[in-house]
């Protein structure tokens, strides 16, 4: 399948500091890619380069067949960008905020209402943005991206700083966009989000991609310990090696009615990240 985004050898330094070091990454059409990394890893910098807000020192990124350093005019119609620091007009209502961009993109009012509806802000349509909660502001910024209805969405930390319930809602909205066939490039530093939402993740640490792949596969790949954890009916836990003998032990336990649940001990992305970099993912 054709790549919506292809990144080739992107390198970027600020002064002496190398923030991105030879990044290579492809995102297929219709895929959600999660760029995962701790604060300062270079996630925002990469999005800025991909969306033409910043120039790279080396390398090339192509979005929808167009070199990001050469975006012009109507190219911006094909992708929506939500940066973690994009502002909203505090004195204007949700509707008025979107109306500005609707005028720019030539979008009709009913699409504004649809976008507000899709992020659950219909009731706050006339509320000035300064009276919105943090989560509602995030939703407003998302609504702006959804309203433009682009093929590719760049979302820089769409759920950062939100409570779990709101984050969950936003993840569902992102999922819905994917179902419409959109390609989504998002950054996050919560691995549960990446595991839940992303087809593929790229783990970024100190400007390098240290691991890439489907989140579940990555975790399986790093399952060195290969152990099984069994919760027993007496409330205790038993860990056994996952090898040719495990079937016997388990069947024994099940027969005697002592096994309650059986788990594999695959690491989560957080653990994998720790193993690869020696660093915590969450800041």
């Amino acid at each position, binding site marked *: 399948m054709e790549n919506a985004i292809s990144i080739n050898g992107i390198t970027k330094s600020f002064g002496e500091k190398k923030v991105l070091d030879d990044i290579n990454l492809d995102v297929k059409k219709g895929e959600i890619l999660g760029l995962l990394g701790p604060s300062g890893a270079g996630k925002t910098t990469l999005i800025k380069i991909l*969306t033409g*807000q910043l120039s790279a020192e080396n390398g090339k990124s192509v979005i929808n067949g167009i070199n990001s350093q050469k975006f012009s*005019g*109507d190219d*911006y*119609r094909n992708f929506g*960008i939500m*940066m973690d*620091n*994009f*502002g*909203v*007009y*505090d*004195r*204007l209502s949700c509707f*008025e905020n979107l109306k*500005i*961009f609707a*005028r*720019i*993109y*030539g979008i009709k009012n009913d699409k504004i209402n649809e976008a507000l509806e899709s992020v659950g802000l219909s009731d706050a349509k006339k509320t*000035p943005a300064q009276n919105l909660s943090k989560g509602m502001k995030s939703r407003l910024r998302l609504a*702006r991206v959804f309203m*433009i209805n682009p093929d590719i969405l760049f979302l820089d930390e769409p759920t950062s700083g939100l409570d779990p319930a709101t984050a969950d809602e936003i993840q569902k909205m992102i999922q819905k966009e994917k179902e419409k066939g959109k390609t989504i490039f998002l950054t996050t530093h919560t691995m549960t989000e990446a595991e839940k939402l992303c087809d593929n993740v790229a783990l970024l640490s100190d400007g390098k991609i240290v691991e890439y792949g489907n989140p579940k596969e990555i975790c399986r790949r790093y399952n060195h310990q290969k152990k099984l954890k069994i919760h027993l009916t007496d409330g205790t836990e038993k860990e056994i090696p996952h090898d040719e003998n495990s079937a016997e032990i388990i069947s024994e336990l099940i027969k005697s009615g002592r096994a309650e649940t059986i788990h594999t001990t695959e690491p989560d992305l957080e653990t994998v990240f720790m193993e690869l970099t020696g660093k915590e993912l969450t800041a």
Partner: protein
Amino acid sequence: MKNITAVFLKQIKETFRNKTILIQFLMFPVMVIIMENAIKLENMPEHFFVKLFAVMFVGMAPLTCMSAIISEEKEKNTLRALMMSNVKPFEYLLGVGAYVFIMCIIGAVVFAVCGGYEGKDLLEFMVIMGAGILLSSLTGAVIGVFSKNQMSATSITIPVMMIFSFLPMLSMFNESIEKVARITYSQQMSILINGIGNAGIKPESIIIIAVNFVVASILFTLAFRKKGLE
């Protein structure tokens, strides 16, 4: 054009709810209506307050509004969002500039009515005001483009605004100040406005205003080259 209109209409809605900007547009026009009607001293030149406040209004309102609007959008990162929607810097500046210009021209009309200008004098007055508003807006844009947030914009705006709006008034009392003030467009505006209907237009005034315009344009280009609208 569509982008300029979008920015222009946004600005109408936004500033309608922004008291600090609104007060800039209203303060002098309201003051002139009150003072012209309330205070009548003997020996006071005709329409003294119109001539005094018109110049202060031009020195203050367009400059303060432009720099406040631009720097707030930078600080709150709303400008970024516009730029990423392919609004070009010149479209943004024209949209905001057109708004400030029109609001101030409405203010100028209030002054013109209070001053009782008619016919050729009215035209002359409005042209002088228009040129001053344009220059003052441009100066405000220079400050807005140069500053990265509202705080830094305000700290530059206040002294600059004092120079342009207060020097002409202080010049009435002190000759040395008048000599320095002559190089500013606002002092020349004051001279021109006071000369309407009698002294006529001196080439010197036009030249100084033109030089002010060139200097402001150069500063704007420099600020824009250095900072863009980041």
